[in-house]
């Protein structure tokens, strides 16, 4: 029977018409399923292609699952590959149907052709269906012993996939041990690399729960394995080399000879064509020599050239990432790069983010010998078409001036900027001149002469205007018309909208008043009156403060407003050196690109990538709701020793990843945006405002069956107050309670208990610990009163016991609360 050759309804297979297309495909597949006719494979291939193109453009073709499986009994490799692809994509949604595929996949695992064996094994492991795990073990075990290295590489990764589906099954079959043996003995480098990759991931995840895994991880970082891998490093593929190098960077050598041996061995990796290998090698070098200052310097010299080449030769994407690393190194050791300044000159075609980094580096490496050159170059950029970069380069000139002792030439250049008569150049320059004067008051005469010629009307930007006003106030004795300029500014008070400018104006008028009282008196009166009537609280307060100060004693006021000034020697650095060190430790990672240590942006993910991402497919990316739920739950998961410490710094953890919404650093924000989400669905808006001040409430609380003591469903207590109360109060009740079996089973992570207790109107303020021991701090509030109950609860899941310590504002109610708490705890897991 010759099958009917498919007559596609739509002209192009990549633009299928949707549902009818799927049924059509189904029908045709069914007709072909049993066909042994010559040419059937070709027809099938066309059909499969169409199915997969539907899948690719996002049409759900899963209804054709059983037909696809029926058609998959074929010897054609291309058909098989397409079928594997299809099955891999839809098995998760159709676990029952996936069972159908097991049979032919298992059969393919014994095929003569190693390619097919490998492909089948890979597809089998990629099904990721929980209840099919048992069928995986035997093919995997066979795959690990296969005589073809291709199959072994696939099997090594397959073990990892199995581990992610069912960790226990993986351990029961003793796969980690088999992988380790394979890693140490296999002749094929790719197999070794894949084993290493799987083992690292398995043991790292296990290490939290089992000492054995932690010990195994230790051995991976141990001398024998590191040496074994290093000696074979040239056999590995470039990606595997990155993996090995990353491992090596964590190894701590015992003595200097070892360090030199390793560095000699790895030196040629610096000339690898793959930038990732180069960067990984650099990381190893930097870490190895951390304790040897002089060698460390030599390392910098050695890695300079490869890094500079990478920056210039790679694609723009690569060069930015490398540049970030270079930026980090330059910031750490600017001296070493001072002769390479020409490499950091901006090219016209550089994207502006690259230019910005380069400007920062130029600023950092400026020293006596190259300042002239660098500043000349920077001045070129001031005329750049790209305005933000022009601004940035002016700022860079200023920063260099602040670093140097010989600022003569630079001040001249800055003053030249003022003569360029470009508003943004003037604005930036004014801010810089102000900073410069604060550090080098001796230059005031030169600067004032030029600044005095600038009309305050031509400046629009608040920062620049504030700077100009500051200078007018500070140097009013040297500027002839300072009082009159200030007076005209005060007259235009209403037109000046920035509070910053108004504040500066108030202060400047005050200062001017003490230097040239008769000329300023009128302006001062007008300014104070305008300030007092101002809507802005700060402006109002400052005006009031000056007014009362003047009322109280003019001499005192002068001492306050015009004290003798000391030149500023060092301006505050924005990033602490601790953070910089931390980023340096994380060399060759995203932290360098973000210029933030990784805990500031990946913590959330590190804690539970798997359960977290399962929800993801249901969430719209635009809203942050998914993130927030997880985030607020995990905020409490602080380490044990961090308990009760101020949580303010940890609140930032999730901050940077919350793109685009208001959830940044303020603690209450997390709740506010979450409650906004929920208010749109279930809760009235008024309720959300209430929640603003509180700590996270994950679910709409279900009120407990009315006990003798009723609790406030939405108590509010901030961590600081909790800590204070905990310190003040004495333990009113201390008990030991037993958890139900179900309760222990569901306590895989602290959140489950936290959620449960919240349903009972008991809020968690902090939690932490590692299995089997968890520690929680809860609190609750008596309905209709301000009295709080504070609870410390230590749960041991191994013995199913919980130690409870209760402190209460109102000790008389503590027994009632204790029994309530206990009943809530014992109900855990049963609901």
């Amino acid at each position: 029977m010759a099958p009917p050759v498919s007559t596609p309804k739509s002209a192009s297979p990549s633009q299928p018409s949707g549902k009818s297309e799927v049924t059509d495909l189904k029908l045709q597949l069914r007709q072909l399923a049993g066909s042994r006719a010559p040419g059937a494979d070709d027809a099938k291939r066309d059909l499969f292609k169409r199915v997969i193109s539907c899948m690719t453009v996002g049409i759900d073709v899963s209804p054709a699952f059983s037909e696809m499986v029926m058609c998959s009994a074929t010897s054609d490799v291309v058909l098989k590959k397409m079928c594997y692809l299809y099955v891999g994509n839809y098995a998760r949604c159709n676990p029952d149907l996936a069972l159908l595929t097991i049979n032919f996949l298992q059969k393919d695992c014994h095929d003569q052709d190693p390619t097919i064996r490998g492909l089948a094994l890979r597809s089998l492991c990629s099904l990721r269906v929980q209840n099919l795990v048992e069928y995986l073990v035997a093919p995997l075990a066979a795959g690990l012993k296969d005589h073809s290295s291709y199959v072994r590489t696939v099997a090594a990764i397959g073990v990892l996939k199995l581990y992610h589906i069912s960790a226990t099954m993986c351990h029961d079959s003793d796969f980690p041990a088999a992988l380790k043996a394979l890693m140490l003995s296999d002749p094929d480098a790719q197999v070794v690399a894949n084993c290493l990759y799987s083992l690292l991931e398995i043991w790292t995840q296990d290490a939290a729960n089992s000492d054995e895994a932690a010990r195994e991880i230790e051995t991976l970082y141990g001398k024998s394995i590191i040496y074994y891998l290093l000696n074979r490093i040239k056999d590995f593929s470039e990606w595997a080399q990155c993996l090995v190098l990353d491992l090596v960077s964590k190894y701590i050598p015992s003595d200097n000879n070892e360090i030199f041996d390793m560095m000699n061995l790895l030196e040629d990796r610096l000339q690898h064509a793959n930038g990732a290998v180069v960067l990984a090698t650099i990381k190893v070098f930097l870490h190895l020599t951390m304790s040897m200052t002089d060698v460390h310097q030599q390392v910098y010299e050695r890695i300079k050239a490869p890094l500079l080449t990478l920056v210039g030769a790679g694609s723009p994407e690569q060069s930015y990432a490398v540049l970030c690393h270079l930026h980090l190194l330059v910031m750490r050791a600017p001296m070493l790069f001072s002769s390479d300044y020409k490499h950091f000159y901006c090219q016209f075609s550089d994207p502006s983010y690259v230019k910005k980094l380069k400007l920062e580096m130029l600023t950092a490496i400026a020293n006596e010998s190259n300042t002239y050159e660098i500043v000349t170059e920077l001045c070129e950029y001031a005329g750049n078409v790209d305005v933000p970069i022009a601004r940035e380069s002016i700022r860079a000139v200023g920063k260099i001036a602040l670093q140097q002792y010989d600022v003569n030439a630079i001040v001249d250049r800055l003053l030249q900027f003022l003569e360029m008569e470009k508003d943004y150049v003037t604005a930036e320059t004014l801010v810089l001149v102000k900073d410069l004067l604060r550090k080098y008051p001796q230059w005031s005469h030169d600067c004032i002469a030029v600044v005095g010629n600038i009309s305050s009307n031509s400046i629009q930007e608040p920062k620049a205007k504030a700077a100009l006003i500051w200078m007018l106030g500070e140097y009013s004795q040297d500027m002839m018309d300072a009082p009159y300029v200030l007076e005209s500014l005060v007259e235009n008070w209403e037109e000046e909208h920035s509070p910053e400018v108004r504040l500066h104006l108030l202060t400047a008028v005050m200062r001017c008043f003490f230097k040239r009282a008769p000329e300023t008196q009128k302006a001062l009166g007008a300014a104070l009156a305008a300030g007092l009537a101002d809507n802005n609280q700060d402006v109002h307060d400052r005006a009031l403060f000056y007014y009362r100060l003047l009322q109280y004693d003019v001499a005192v006021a002068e001492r306050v407003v015009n004290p003798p000034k000391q030149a500023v020697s060092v301006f505050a650095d924005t990033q602490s050196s601790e953070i910089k060190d931390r980023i340096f430790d994380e060399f060759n990672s995203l932290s360098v690109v973000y210029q933030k240590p990784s805990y500031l942006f990946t913590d959330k993910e590190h804690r539970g990538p798997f359960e977290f991402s399962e929800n993801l497919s249901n969430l719209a990316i635009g809203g942050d709701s998914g993130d927030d739920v997880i985030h607020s739950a995990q905020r409490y998961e602080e380490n044990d020793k961090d308990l009760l410490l101020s949580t303010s710094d940890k609140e930032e953890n999730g901050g940077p990843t919350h793109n685009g919404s208001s959830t940044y650093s303020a603690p209450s924000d997390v709740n506010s945006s979450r409650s906004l989400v929920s208010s749109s669905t279930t809760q009235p808006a008024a309720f959300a405002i209430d929640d603003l001040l509180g700590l996270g409430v994950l679910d709409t609380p279900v009120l407990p069956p009315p006990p003798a003591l009723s609790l406030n469903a939405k108590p509010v207590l901030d961590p600081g107050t909790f800590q204070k109360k905990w310190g003040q109060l004495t333990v009113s009740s201390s008990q030991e309670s037993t958890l139900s079996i179900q309760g222990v089973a569901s306590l895989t992570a602290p959140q489950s208990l936290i959620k449960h207790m919240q349903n009972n109107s008991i809020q968690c303020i902090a939690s932490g610990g590692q299995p089997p021991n968890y520690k929680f701090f809860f609190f609750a509030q008596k309905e209709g009163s301000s009295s709080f109950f504070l609870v410390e609860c230590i749960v041991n899941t191994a013995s199913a016991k919980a130690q409870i310590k209760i402190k209460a504002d109102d000790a008389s109610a503590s027994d009632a609360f204790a029994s309530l708490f206990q009943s809530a705890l014992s109900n855990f897991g049963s609901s």
Partner: protein
Amino acid sequence: MVEKQMMGHHVDRSICAWFWHQYNHHRNNDQMSVVTSPTHYLFPLIRHGIIFLACTQLELPPLLPIEFLSRFADILSDYLCAGSGAGATLNEDIVKDNFVIVYEVLDEMMDNGFPLTTEPNLLKDIVLPPNLVTKVLHAVTGNSSPSVGPTLPHAAASTVPWRSTHPKTTTNEVYVNLVEQLDASVNWDGNLRRCQVYGEIQVNSSLPGFPDLTLSFTNPSLLNDVRFHPCVRFRPWESSQVLSFVPPDGHFKLMTYRVKELKKIPIYVKPQLTSDSGNCRISALVGVRNDPGKTIDSIIVEFQLPPCITSADLTSNHGTVDILADKTCRWSIGQIPKDKLPSLSGNLVLEPGLDRLHVAPTFQVRFKIMGIAMSGLQIDKLDVKNMPANPYKGFRAQTQAGDYEFRS
């Protein structure tokens, strides 16, 4: 849109929609190489108008995904464009037509988020590229040959993973091509601010058996920094600065290098801008400075007109001047004629209210010089060992402008 889920957990497609939105939003601005989305970190890589996007939630070396994606893009264009004639570049339609190949290749290149096989030669043994031969075969016999290799690559276990043990070459030849890219920037006063060369040695080898090649230079001390293809042996380079290697089959990048602090540039541009009362006179002169001895080809001078310019009237005595939609002025010169110096002149009208032009445009120059490497690097000789017959050896050199700019 082709997607491949690597890890156990599912990354939703809507991330792409998010990225696309962001991308369109920032199209005019610069794209970062790492983008933070609400849920993932994205690594976009744009090649030939196709965006390759990798997502991660974990901390990882940033160059790993970037390098991988660029490698993937290279291999894909190698695979898909080789069949459709020379000069073809990757585009949406080619990818659409061959998405099965794309999936197959991706499947071999990465497993569970870990890069696997990325050597083009090895991949081609596993997944056959859609070449002309298979197409013809398909048309003639009606029986499609599988796009999957019948056997596994043997090289997977050999000591030189980049070379398959039984390359099927009929010819016996090797070509070495020196390609240099000259970066230079010159100030308005004619001072050379910096000048350096990035070079590549591209080798196209089709030699049978297991050849052992040695390439030596007359002046290797020129090189400031070098990076090698994995096939290059490190020791001979250390001791005597020669490249000793067993080449992969086909086209590959043997070495990249950098030469810094060059003193001479082949072409100069003298721009002059004078402005008063809302008008700006512009003139630019192009000439050869240190004659490289070969013709300089495809000269193009480009500069961005500042946004404050309302209209421009530009003429040249040689070549054509176009003003593109994004206010880029392109002056295509081609070759410099013998009898005169090409010059561009014209008038720019500034926005009302502006008296003088405050910004200085940068002139970017593109050119190509065949037959010479501007860094002065010269290949001494190429020895081929381990070969039954002496192969044909070909050498070429070429210099082109990279970031070659003149400020005004």
